[in-house]
């Protein structure tokens, strides 16, 4: 006779099972409506000749063929690369310098707080106001700040047309100044999480400031640096707003990036199908870059649990 008693299996009540989904549902619905559906619509649109008439016809890969035969494409890709790489490098470097300076060298000092707050201002100003400020600085008439200074100092006799001569530089400068704060906050938080004992131990061992930065701080920043690099790079590759407001891609197409080109085709010229195809290429480029950087930062290794937890 079998005396083993069967333990009743615990069944989670249906209500409890559904709890997590109730919490997820509103946000999932928002993501579906505002991200997933538009993305599907964009993909579908890119295979049509949709324009202002709103009578789309399926054209297969015609839009993509057109993108790759567009004589502007090499120049636009080059602009996108220059804008993204320079913006990312400068923004990352400054964010790193500022966070090390304020969170390590000036840690706990009021000047550090003020300095960080100052860098936050550009990112909280509405974009249109922010761009107006840069436009005023580089105004091509005597009313522009830089031109006024140069004329008063006698360096120039006529106002300089900055947006013709250094458009890409201005665009990168304005973009970098407004994006530094994002990286600065994340890196500062990461540096702040380093236990004070580590610094003390290093100093007892006679470590120089350089060694502390190179051997303690920078290795700690690998995660946030990876996150900032990937998120900002995707942001720069797909950003067009500042460029549109500052130069609208000019002079000629000197500051036209791929995403601005997509915007112009879709919304200025009303070639929605073609614009969607260009924007899909932006997405593909961003995706490839993300994979590349995950590999570069050795993402698999980073997410492996540490041995102590084995």
């Amino acid at each position, binding site marked *: 006779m079998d005396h083993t008693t069967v333990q009743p299996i615990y069944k989670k009540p249906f209500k409890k099972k559904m709890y997590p989904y109730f919490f997820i549902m509103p946000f999932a619905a928002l993501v579906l409506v505002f991200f997933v559906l538009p993305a599907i619509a964009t993909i579908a649109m890119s295979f049509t000749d949709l324009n202002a*008439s709103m009578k789309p016809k399926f054209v297969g890969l015609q839009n993509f063929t057109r993108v790759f035969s567009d004589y502007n494409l090499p120049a636009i890709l080059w602009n996108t690369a220059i804008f993204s790489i320079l913006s990312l490098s400068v923004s990352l470097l400054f964010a790193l310098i500022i966070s090390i300076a304020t969170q390590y060298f000036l840690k706990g000092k009021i000047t550090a707080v003020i300095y960080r707050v100052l860098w936050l201002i550009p990112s909280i100003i509405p974009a249109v106001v922010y761009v107006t400020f840069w436009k005023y600085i580089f105004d*091509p008439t*005597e009313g522009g700040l830089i031109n006024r200074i140069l004329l008063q100092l006698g360096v120039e006799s006529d106002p300089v047309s900055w947006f*013709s001569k250094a458009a890409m530089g201005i665009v990168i400068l304005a973009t970098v100044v407004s994006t530094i704060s994002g990286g600065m906050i994340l890196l500062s938080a990461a540096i702040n999480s380093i236990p004070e004992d580590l610094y003390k131990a290093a100093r007892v061992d006679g470590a120089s400031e350089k060694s502390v930065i190179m051997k303690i701080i920078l290795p700690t920043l690998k995660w946030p640096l990876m996150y900032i690099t990937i998120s900002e790079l995707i942001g720069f590759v797909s950003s067009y707003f500042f460029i549109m407001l500052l130069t609208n891609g*000019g002079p*000629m197409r000197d500051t036209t990036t791929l995403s601005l080109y997509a915007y112009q085709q879709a919304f*200025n*010229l009303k070639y929605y199908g073609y614009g969607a195809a260009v924007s899909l290429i932006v997405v593909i480029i961003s995706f490839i870059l993300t994979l590349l950087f995950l590999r570069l930062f050795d993402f698999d290794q980073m997410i492996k649990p540490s041995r102590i937890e084995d």
Partner: protein
Amino acid sequence: MKKLVVTALSVVLSTGLLAGCGSGNEPAEATSAGEAKMKEIQISVRESTWGARKDNFIEAEKRLNEELKADNVHVKIDWWPGIGDDELILQAQAGKVADIFMNSSVDIGWELNAGIIRDVDWVKDSKVFKNVPDSYTNIMKYDGHYYGAIQDMDASPVFISRKALEGLSWTKEQIDGLRQRVDSGDFTFGDLEKLAEEAKQKNLVKMGFAVEDTRFEGWNYAFGNYNYNVDENKMVLTKKTKDVYEFWADAVKRGIINESIGDVDTDKAAPMFVKGEIFAEFARTEFYQMMREANGMQNDLEGFNTWFNKNIVWIPIPSAEKGGKPVSYSNPAMIYVGPTVDDEKMPYVQRLIEHVLDPDLQINHTLVSGKLPVTPEAQEDKRFKEMDFYKDHAYLLEFTKTRPAQPDYATYTKSYILGVDAILTKGQSAEQAYELFQKDAKQNVPSDHLIIEQ
């Protein structure tokens, strides 16, 4: 308690949803105690408050309702703020196009293709539009039908610094007689360039020519380069464009045009011109109001007119050819009617639009916007006749050209401006600019919308 809250919330939400789903545009039967049933017609109007546009619609509504009292009909305007083209397209997709809306005359082509306008062939027989010049009729017509009612108009004079001309030893008689010489074709575009160059060389001004935003049409038209074949409704890639590029390249070399010409917004150009820093500003009649503001004389019309006559002289854009006719361009606003307006509602929509064009209302708009009235009756208005500046411009409307309503016009213009940019910022020759323009236009303007002249 919980049930009560849930029930109350459901009622509120359902009511809100139902209210939101209703179109609100259907004619309603308005009743009040002791009165016979009054038919109410609701007309949705979508436009900005710029100038006197909104005020004129409200006044037109009042006037129309006075007339409709006898018929026991009441028209009610449902005002929506003006929005951009993209929102207009989306509203059309949602079946929410306003009954009446305004847009540029250049938009007829794509609006018709998108199905967001309907024909307004009543314009042909309307008393209001009976006496407008043929050029206006051409703007309102597209593909054999009337699709818009012209709302306002402007002309594009060249404002010249009188002080600079005096600095070049021009006498008062010479200056005052300049317009007549332009009208007769005696004074050409080249002559104007020479004057600007001389004024710049003598340091009388800092800039030779300035232009409103990137509205370069005037210079195209001066060289007889119209780029559009009205019969085939196609853009034209013509070698005449090279002549215009040659002017640009030459003007840059001679210092008449600065490379920043496209970057100096009109609101910045106005104070510069008022200070006498620009020799000639190619703008539209609206620039008169901008100068008034730049002078701080918004409330002193008499004082401004005195200043204007002492400091400025204006001419139509001279022809590039000796003996040629001057030119002028405009970007007029049109009143469009949405496709949901049926034949039953159309008479009320028509009468409302006709009232908006009542002579006195047109002049109200002119006074605040600087735009010109479109009907000869409005130009007879006492207040208009008292405004020398606008009154003297009325004759320009006879030959003022407008942008074509071809749907790919914007693409074509982008290619054209690319060539101009190449000259301005890269020092390219007219030949190189033309090559670039040709390459860009051929690539981007659909081939069935483009005529390539050999």
